[in-house]
């Protein structure tokens, strides 16, 4: 379907898509930009205010190639801040829809399905916050097999499906099961005391990264994940099994997940793990999930130190 007619401007086309209709309410104050984590952390050229301007000024090609069109993950931190109450992510989604229809493709690295491993269980379909995966039928060795496929323009690379996929059939470069387990101190003669899985979005500024890097490798091993929705309780147990004494999972505060629901998913998974370990009367259960808010710069040090104190390798100074 096409929204384009000769008389329609780019802005008309965007407004015709549900969610795009609030476009013209924008008076370019830029509050959205100041709230946006992408602009601060990933891509200085990311700018919702400017994208909305581009649409209104009929700058079609510029809008379709703008990183803003593709990188918005609908976290909606800007929505609550916008004085005009524009649901900006929906306007951006409308632009993205037109870009996809015009043949543009997402520059992000999407997840991929290994069909040899896929069971067609449909778990990825259910858990994805962006409706990127779907099931389809395909003939394999003369029989119809149900498999998963991914709409690469919808995938934001959060890794929630990767953690939920039972067989590691769905994966993305950098967050595959193999790449996570390779970072665990399996067979290490001197395992770190603490393994920290950290969602990079929960680190608020470069100073937080410096804090993480200030710990010696034999004390704290940091494993970066795109979102705590990627955490697999299996990996937490494997970290303990390989000799670490504690596991800390750091994610974003409730309502601040970059990928809409990753931190809720992580809360559920870590909660279930905690319950099972308690039922099991597991000795020295040092597994914790913490959620760091956008305003809590530097909290990561307190959380790591608290964990190290709990296992007795750091004296509590406070």
């Amino acid at each position, binding site marked *: 379907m096409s929204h384009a007619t000769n008389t329609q401007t780019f802005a008309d086309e965007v407004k015709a898509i549900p969610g795009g209709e609030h476009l013209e309410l924008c008076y370019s104050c830029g509050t959205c930009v100041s709230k946006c984590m992408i602009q601060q952390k990933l891509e200085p050229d990311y700018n919702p205010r400017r994208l909305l301007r581009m649409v209104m000024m009929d700058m079609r090609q510029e809008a379709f190639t703008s990183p803003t069109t593709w990188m918005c993950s609908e976290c909606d931190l800007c929505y609550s801040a916008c004085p005009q109450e524009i649901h900006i992510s929906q306007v951006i989604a409308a632009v993205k829809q037109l870009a996809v229809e015009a043949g543009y493709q997402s520059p992000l690295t999407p997840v991929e399905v290994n069909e040899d491993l896929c069971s067609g269980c449909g*778990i990825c379909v259910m858990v994805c916050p962006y409706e990127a995966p779907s099931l389809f039928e395909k003939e394999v060795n003369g029989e119809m097999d149900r498999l998963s496929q991914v709409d690469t323009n919808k995938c934001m690379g959060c890794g929630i499906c990767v953690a939920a996929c039972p067989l590691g059939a769905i994966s993305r470069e950098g967050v595959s099961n193999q790449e996570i387990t390779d970072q665990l101190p399996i067979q290490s003669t001197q395992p770190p005391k603490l393994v920290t899985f950290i969602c990079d979005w929960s680190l608020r500024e470069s100073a937080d990264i410096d804090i993480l890097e200030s710990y010696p490798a034999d004390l704290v091993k940091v494993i970066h994940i795109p979102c705590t929705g990627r955490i697999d309780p299996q990996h937490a147990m494997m970290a303990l099994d390989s000799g670490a004494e504690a596991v800390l999972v750091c994610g974003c505060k409730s309502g601040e997940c970059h990928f809409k629901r990753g931190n809720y998913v992580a809360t559920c998974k870590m909660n279930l793990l905690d319950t099972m370990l308690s039922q099991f009367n597991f000795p020295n259960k040092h597994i914790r999930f913490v959620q760091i808010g956008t305003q809590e710069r530097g909290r990561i040090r307190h959380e790591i130190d608290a964990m190290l104190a709990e296992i007795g390798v750091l004296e509590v100074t406070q």
Partner: protein
Amino acid sequence: MTVKSKPKLAFYWAASCGGCEISVIELGMHLVDVSEAADIVFWPAAMDFKYNDVRAMAENEIDYCFFNGAIRNSENEEIAHLLREKSKNLVAFGSCSYLGGIPGLANMYDIESLCQRIYETSPSLDDSRGTRPQTTTTMPEGEIKIPELYDHVKLLAEVVDVDYFMPGCPPVVDQIWKVFQAVLDGNLPPKGAVIGADTKTVCDVCPREKGTPGFRIKEFKRPHEVDLDPNKCFLTQGVICAGPVTRAGCGIPCLKGNMPCRGCYGPAEGIVDQGTKLASVIGALIDTDNPEELQNILDTIVDPAGTFYRFGLAHSIMSKMKYD
């Protein structure tokens, strides 16, 4: 031309319910085929053999020993060692032997509280003396000895080397027959393999309608609490199904009976820890931004450890670490 000697087979049960034995018996007429093509040299549940018959055998005299049941006491372990010594191939037969099975759920509790329950506080008990079994009891006629109960349930592979693992509670008849045929034809995969099962998960062969995008569980129900739609994925009906993480090969009798997969075929290929992986699946299906509501939803899961690790608790990382 040399006459090929018949392979020698042995069957044994350790800490098990007897279901694995029944499943072998259910081979029916195929059992006659097996007994014609092979010599059964030890099978306490079905034939009259004694431990001393095994002790008298030469090393590696048995070609294939199918060992069902977990290792719960010193007798189980002693016979595991004996059969290992006398067998060329030792097969952990059934979920108890391979994964700990239902007996492995006991690893959640310490042995003292288990014994207290069984011998002192169980409502069906009528014995105020608090009698506990002792390994040695002196009677007028002499000393009586019984095996020592271990503090936790061990897998067969924890006490001896195991060549093959065959899952199932019990292994289904079709798969047993396939494995026996492979044994008789000398056609088994390399050692260490899981036999008599597939590699992918139960979902791969489950014909039920799968979940749609954005499906979320708001309340978990137990199978008896719901009028279950026989055509829909159990998870989409709020009922926990271990199918996503469980190895296929059973022929899905439970699903056909409109009951969810309980996980008896153990973790599918590539899954390290069945229970935590299932938690990783189930956790991702819950959705709410309200922490209180989230806790309420999670509270509707009755006994997470026992449900997610129903047959594999003794095989779990947590059990391994606790009892290492």
